């Protein structure tokens, strides 16, 4: 048994049955990190000593207090956390030069819940700076590689999280999604990525990108693992006024092997150009699996995803402009004064502009600038109203479009990404790279819907992601369909040869 290759579900069982210690499990992950990091580069910070202490604490409880151990659903399970979640006393960079030295004085609610559940933090994973991107190429530090082919990208922005799970550096990870940042890297790396309903999981202490869209969620090795992690992190948080007060069901109970009576819709445009034919074919092959499970597959109409990209581009940039206004380099963050540079700032505003001009990377600057333009009437004077309003109005139509579709079907499926993982450098070539890559996930994020991505095949040894979208707060139904599909197929058993002990002789990708 190679401990770091266990799923969360299996690792929990093993710990409770005392087959191995939490410390062994943590050491196995730390060893894998040490072995693989030079090639993979998924972590910005590794907290090995902190993890060892936590694991030893977990072992004490597991060995001596079996009753007490039941109070900690994730006791002794090592995980990685996207470096966008504030962790008190532990460097939190958002992948940005602006926050390269930032040590937060408080914890994100999600991190606090994972700690309270007994999980063991291994480190903080790489991302596109401030989560602005779909590849980790916009990280201000370095690019993470895809565990299946290391000259390919992991996707993003939660690329480090997805890579760390698939390469068995961590048992599970937490990412965040604004428009694809959980599902798209999960698809490219072949992990399970669940983006919950907006407000199902607290945003408190998550470095804000677009506050009307941001949502934390699990990236895991299996659907059951995702259900389990969601159970721990979901629920109302008085510190996030937009978190939902609705009660949460017990998600692991939703996992069933039958989809009898479930209607699943798909839209033609989600399978056509620019979606690669091989990707579309892999997704279409899932239809017969779902039918065998008892579901009914039905073609439906959905708005052209191009609308969603336009809306997303406007709203996200506008909210970025507002959220990133707080980085002035005066109270924390990149500061010319701290760096001892001689500044000729006549007043505080000149200093702020100078700090921001140097502290922000090219992508952040572009988004802030576009956000300013879409919000300010003074800048877009020739328009009847700023783009921001048009975006919010079009959002109403997208919400209504999904509401109509969910009158006809229970779930909607399609490819997560139009392509499999692209090669390094892909982003450079196309200024609208993210918009094109995330075109199939942006419509549902704009409507606040939950969605999951899981493997449904391989093309040229790279995984293909299937996404399943449900109505708001129907994570249980989304998980049920994903679980039934996963259990009926064997895609989840394939392992990346470079980062797992199962070599070509056994389970290997289908070419």
């Amino acid at each position: 048994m190679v401990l770091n290759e266990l799923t969360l579900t299996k690792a929990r069982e093993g710990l409770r049955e005392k087959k191995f210690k939490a410390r062994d499990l943590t050491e196995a992950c730390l060893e894998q990190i040490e072995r693989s990091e030079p090639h993979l580069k998924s972590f910005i910070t590794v907290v090995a000593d902190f993890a060892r202490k936590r694991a030893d604490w977990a072992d004490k409880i597991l060995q001596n207090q079996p009753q007490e151990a039941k109070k900690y659903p994730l006791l002794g399970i090592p995980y990685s956390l996207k470096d966008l979640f504030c962790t008190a006393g532990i460097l939190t960079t958002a992948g940005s030069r602006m926050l390269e030295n930032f040590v937060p004085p408080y914890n994100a609610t999600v991190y606090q819940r994972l700690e309270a559940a007994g999980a063991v933090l291994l480190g903080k994973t790489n991302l596109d700076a401030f989560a602005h991107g779909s590849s980790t190429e916009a990280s201000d530090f370095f690019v993470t590689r895809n565990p299946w082919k290391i000259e390919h990208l992991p996707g993003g922005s939660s690329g480090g999280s997805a890579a760390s799970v698939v390469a068995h550096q961590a048992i599970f990870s937490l990412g965040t999604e604004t428009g694809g940042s959980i599902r798209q890297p999960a698809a490219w790396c072949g992990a399970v990525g669940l983006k919950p309903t907006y407000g199902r999981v607290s945003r408190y202490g998550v470095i804000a990108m677009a506050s009307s869209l941001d949502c934390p969620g699990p990236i895991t090795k299996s659907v059951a693992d995702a259900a389990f992690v969601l159970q721990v992190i979901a629920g109302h948080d008085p510190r996030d006024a937009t978190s939902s007060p609705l009660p949460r069901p017990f998600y692991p109970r939703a996992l069933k092997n039958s989809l009898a009576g479930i209607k699943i819709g798909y839209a033609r445009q989600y399978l056509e150009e620019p979606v690669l034919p091989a990707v579309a074919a892999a997704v279409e092959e899932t239809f017969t699996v779902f039918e065998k499970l008892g579901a009914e597959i039905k073609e439906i109409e959905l708005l052209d995803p191009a609308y969603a990209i336009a809306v997303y581009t406007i709203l996200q940039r506008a909210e970025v402009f507002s959220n990133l206004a707080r980085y002035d380099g005066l109270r924390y963050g990149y500061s010319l004064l701290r760096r001892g540079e001689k500044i000729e700032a006549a007043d505080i505003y000149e200093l702020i502009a100078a700090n921001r001009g140097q502290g922000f990377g090219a992508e952040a600057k572009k988004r802030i600038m576009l956000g300013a333009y879409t919000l300010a009437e003074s800048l877009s004077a020739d328009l009847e109203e700023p783009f921001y309003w048009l975006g919010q109005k079009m959002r109403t139509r997208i919400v209504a479009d999904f509401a109509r579709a969910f009158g006809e079907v229970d779930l909607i499926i399609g490819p997560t990404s139009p392509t499999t993982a692209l090669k390094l450098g892909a982003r450079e070539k196309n200024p609208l790279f993210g918009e094109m890559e995330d075109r199939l996930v942006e419509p549902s994020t704009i409507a606040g819907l939950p969605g999951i991505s899981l493997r449904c095949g391989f093309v040229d040894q790279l995984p293909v992601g299937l996404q399943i979208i449900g109505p708001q707060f129907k994570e249980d139904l989304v998980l049920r369909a994903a679980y039934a599909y996963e259990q009926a197929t064997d895609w989840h058993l394939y392992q990346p040869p470079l980062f797992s002990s199962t070599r070509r002789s056994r389970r290997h990708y289908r070419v």
Partner: protein
Amino acid sequence: MTLAREEVKKIAQVARLKLTGEDEERLARELGAALDFVQTLENEKGLAREEPTYQVTGLKNVYRGDEERVASETLTPSQVLANAPQKKDGYFQVPPVLN
């Protein structure tokens, strides 16, 4: 479209960003490309009359109870100042706001 250099400068001022000449040139080009894209919404029929959606799950006016906060929930001055580039006598130190 490509934005005029002057326009880029105006936006940078609103956004409090000191840009280099290289930045300005790149942004004029890239912002233009993004704007071409979002402009498709301008031609959308009847959109001006649609109600905007700000909050997708329908929450409205969420308040907390009028209760005293626990003191341990607040940060100490040293925690607050821990990341400050310049501080003095328990305050952040900055250049003049009004000159």
